[in-house]
Structure formats: C-alpha cells, structure tokens
C-alpha cells in the first residue's frame, strides 16, 4: 500500500473560474482542508474485465436500431500512465459524447439538432496490461451552450476513470487538434497553464487510422503517481 502524490493544482482549473459562469455559484469558496494520505486514499475499486461487455467499446455499434450511425467514424487509442510514466493496467474508462450533429441523447438536451437512432454515444473500455485502451466512435459535433452569446463547445468526448486509488479519480474531456473553438472555450481555457491544457487535445494518428474504415486519434491520460516511500502499516 502506498499513498499518492498530491494533486498538481497547476494542471487543473480553479473551482471558481469566472469565464465558465456556472462555477461562480457552484465552486467551493473556502480553503480546502489538507488530508494526510492514509489507507482510504490508497484504496479504490478495481473493475474486473467482466465489467466491460463485448460491444461496450464500440459506440458505432452499441446503439444501433436500424442501421449505421451517421458521421465520421473514428478510433481513439490511448495509454493511461501515472506521472512517473508507469502504465496503469485494468482500469475502466467510461466515455460519453454528443452525436455527429452535436446532440446528446440526454433528455434535457434541447439543442435543435437531430438525434441519431443508431447512436447512443456512451460506452466503456478497459486498459490492457500496458495501460492501453481503445474505442470506436463517431466524431462528435460542436454544440451551443448558454454560457455567453454565441457560445459553442468544441468537439469533445467525455471520459471518466477510477484510477488505482480513490485519490486518482479523474473526469476529463478529450478535444480534437485544430479545432477553432478551442481558443474561445472557457471550459478548456480555465486550465490556465497552456502546457497542461495541451494535454487535453488528442493527436491525429495515421498509424492508428484504419485503412478505408476510421481515422485514428491518440489520447494519453496521466494520473497522479505514487509516493516513493510505502506507507507504514
């Protein structure tokens, strides 16, 4: 049992991030209370590979009713490591996203864009022994949101991971290279450090692109590393 290194707040947005208006009434305002790493933070759920069913990793197939989903088929590959570069095997990666038209199947999404009867937009996969994961999907469309006049979210896929411990929990978003909306998006920009922010942008990969089938994108994910000294028990 070892504990995890502290969160590197320089890599994350502040709780109150005024460019993203909803944070103003929802982010904690008082100083965080430091907690000495203990047993609790070092433990976490392990999902047996059984948690992921056969089609969960293929969003182009797991929501079909009468045909193929509309849009640009892509394959997302990534490697999950910690900050020391150690691969993170056997982790579940949960993903969800809008369809090619920028519409979520979520019941409260009122965006006036069509639903796709053959695309739900959610799935999950698991990292292999080397920390690698992959899933097939449709490239998500941009969608408007109410943050400010003419606000549009860049194309993005939401990802959620339980790391190796409770402390390493991460929910993030993967963006696409060259998206002109990135430099206008407060959710992206409120991560103030431009170097950290770049980590949210996937890379187009011809190597991962499947001939005649799907464009490849690489999105690596880095979780907090472990402290060098094991915890005393």
């Amino acid at each position, binding site marked *: 049992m070892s504990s995890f290194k502290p969160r590197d707040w320089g890599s994350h947005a502040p709780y109150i991030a005024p460019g993203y208006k909803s944070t103003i009434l929802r982010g904690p305002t008082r100083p965080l209370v*430091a*907690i000495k790493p203990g047993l609790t933070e070092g433990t976490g759920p392990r999902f*047996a590979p059984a948690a992921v069913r056969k089609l969960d990793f293929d969003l182009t197939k797991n929501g079909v009713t009468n045909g193929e989903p509309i849009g640009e088929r892509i394959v997302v590959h990534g490697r999950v490591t910690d900050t020391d570069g150690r691969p993170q095997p056997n982790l579940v990666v949960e993903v969800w996203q809008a369809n090619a038209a920028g519409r979520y199947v979520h019941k409260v999404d009122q965006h006036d864009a069509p639903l796709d009867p053959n695309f739900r937009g959610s799935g999950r996969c698991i990292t292999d022994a080397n920390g690698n994961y992959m899933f097939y999907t449709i490239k998500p469309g941009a969608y408007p949101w109410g943050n400010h006049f003419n606000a549009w979210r860049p194309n993005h896929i939401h990802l959620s991971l339980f790391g190796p411990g409770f402390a390493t929990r991460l929910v993030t*978003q993967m963006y696409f290279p060259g998206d002109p909306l990135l430099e206008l998006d407060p959710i992206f920009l409120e991560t103030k450090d431009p170097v950290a922010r770049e980590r949210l942008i996937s890379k187009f990969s011809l190597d991962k692109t499947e001939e005649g089938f799907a464009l490849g994108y690489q999105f690596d994910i880095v979780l907090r590393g472990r402290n060098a000294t094991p915890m005393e028990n």
Partner: protein
Amino acid sequence: MAYGETPSQTVGPYFAYGLTPGQYGYDFTDIVDPTIAGPDAEGEHIRITGTVYDGEGNPVNDAMIEIWQADANGVYNDNPIDVSDTGFRGLGRCGTGTDANNRFWFDTVKPGVVEDAHAPFVNVIVFMRGMLSHAFTRFYFDDEADRNAKDAVLQSVPEDRRDTLIAKRNQTSSTSPAGIEYRIDIHMQGDRETVVFDV
C-alpha cells in the same frame, strides 16, 4: 515528474446516459449505482440521503455523487462487481436528477472503523456542471460523537465547520428499506459550506 497530470474537466450536464444510465432510464448497463450494499450484506442497513445546494440555496439537479466506503468490519472491498458472496460493493453513484426533490440516496450498511481512522465515515466525491474539478468530502455519523471527537481528519477541520460533515440519524424514516436514514446536505457555498478536502 516525468509526465504532467491530465487536467480535470467538468462532468457537464449530460453525464446520465454514460455514467448513471440505469437510474435515468437509458438502455445501457451500470457498473455502479446507488446500492452500495445489498440486502445480504453484513452490518446495520441504512440509507444516506441529502440535497446539493448552490450558492443561492437552490437545489442542484445535475450533480453526481459517488461514495466509497469500508464494510461493516472496516475493510475496503476492492472488487465492486463480483459481490455475490458478500452483497457488499463498497462503491455507489447517484445523480440528483431523478428524485422529485433532487435528492441523492444510497442504500448501504454503516461502515466499521478503518485501520487508520477513529470514526466510521464514507468517502464522497461531488461532480457537477459548473465544477471543473470534482470535490472530495466525507460523511461522518452523528451517533458516533465519542469516536468523532478522536478522529484525526475530522479534528483537523476548523471546529465551526465540522458539522457540515456529520450526517443526522433519523430512526423512524419510512423511505429507507432498513428504516434508518442518515440525512446530510451538501452546500457548495454560504454559511454552511461543506468542507472539501485536498485529497
């Protein structure tokens, strides 16, 4: 540091069909839901429930709460999927968008005392639209006053804020299958702002 951390991003308003599909009625399996312990699990069966409030005191209807806790013997179960022998998952997830009053609820057993703690508690993570990083907090129990007074983490919290972490027992509840409900609200801001830990 060889690699920099991937920044956290908000869960957004549309997580339900990906993360809590069963609860919200989407056609996708759950890997975690509001049942932390099934009927067969050892221990005192309880329901934990509450509301998340924003800085204007309005209930938040698109938050997602996760709980990670030890079993009745104070042991963490690291495999929440295959629990046919114990009935205890140890992990729960609940969105605030399906209850009429936007409450979260968890059916579980009261945790035992973990090796390095002095009082029973559950670990809590709060996610929502409007938070770019999730918030770590804890729920303690108001009928454990003696142990709470010795708990190093709870005692490290400024005295006037400790109460924000203590769930109130309500024995006569009819909404819980076990009849025992602990109630605790999460206030993101204001006089009763819930303590958030830098885990």
